[in-house]
């Protein structure tokens, strides 16, 4: 494990704990501030952007598999099932040469 891995773990741990501490000492103030909506919105927007960045420039098969995953996620709201069926669809399409 190179220094980058250690750094990632350390920086992420500090960031995650800082967020919790912010909640402990300033949670109420932040929640009642006019910027509270940003905290509500940002996680969803980042996840959507992550999906988009991993689909950009990919072949049709990847988009179809993403469609399958989206349908599974929509109807089940289950993370593991979405991952399992999404990967299965992707593997199947890969195997079919799509």
């Amino acid at each position, binding site marked *: 494990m190179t220094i980058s891995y250690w750094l990632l773990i350390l920086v992420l741990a500090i960031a995650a704990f800082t967020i919790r501490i912010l909640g402990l000492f300033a949670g109420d103030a932040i929640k009642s501030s006019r910027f509270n909506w940003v905290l509500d919105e940002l*996680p969803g927007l980042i996840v959507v952007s992550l999906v988009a960045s991993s689909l950009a420039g990919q072949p049709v098969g990847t988009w179809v598999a993403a469609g399958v995953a989206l349908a599974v996620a929509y109807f089940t709201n289950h*993370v593991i099932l979405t991952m399992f069926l999404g990967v299965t669809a992707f593997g199947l399409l890969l195997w079919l040469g799509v």
Partner: protein
Amino acid sequence: MKHGALAILPLAAGAAVYGFAFGLLAAQVGFPWWGVTLMSGLVHAGSSQIVAVEQFAGSASVLGAALAGAALNLRYIGIVATLSEILSGLSLRMKLLTIHITGDENWALTMAERAKDPAIGARFLIGSGLVMISVWTVSTTLGAVAGSTLPNLEQFGLGFAFTAAFIAMARGLWRGYANLLPWSASFVTTIAAVSLGTPKAYAIVTGAICGLVISHQLRKRGKTPK
């Protein structure tokens, strides 16, 4: 404490499956099992870890990966803020420990149980939290051990597992049609930015900011009920 530890077990079982899957993916992108153990114990945030590891594998930019991951955890500002009454009798050291071992599952269970019985408090939260962080750390480690013994699973489509996980996370964060326009804007902007050759980390930030701008405009016009 025992009450909380036992009550959380069904939810912990669900987290264990997710943890195992995360450990497997992390090992496949080069994390040793003990690195995964360390990360799970120190970070204790499932979606943050999965995002950070995927970003790190793709770009090797530590700061970008950590910030993308951490942003997913912003909800903990609100989650921890709701605990102020429960934590009020604890020492500062215990408060810090408790907020670290608090995850979505044991927080939600504690709040739900407390609504029924006001005697439920810090001990329940700590008992259930200790189980959650233990199960999370052990299951991610086991996943990483399994992942490191397997051959490269990329050829079988394992790389897509991250995308599928993000799609599932998005579903969990979906709050109704008020999200549709901002989310679409983020999606299209990110695709356009990547297609124009922008590095993915910047494309993601650009997409998220674009979504925030749209959301802000909608809020100003009073079109979002929240």
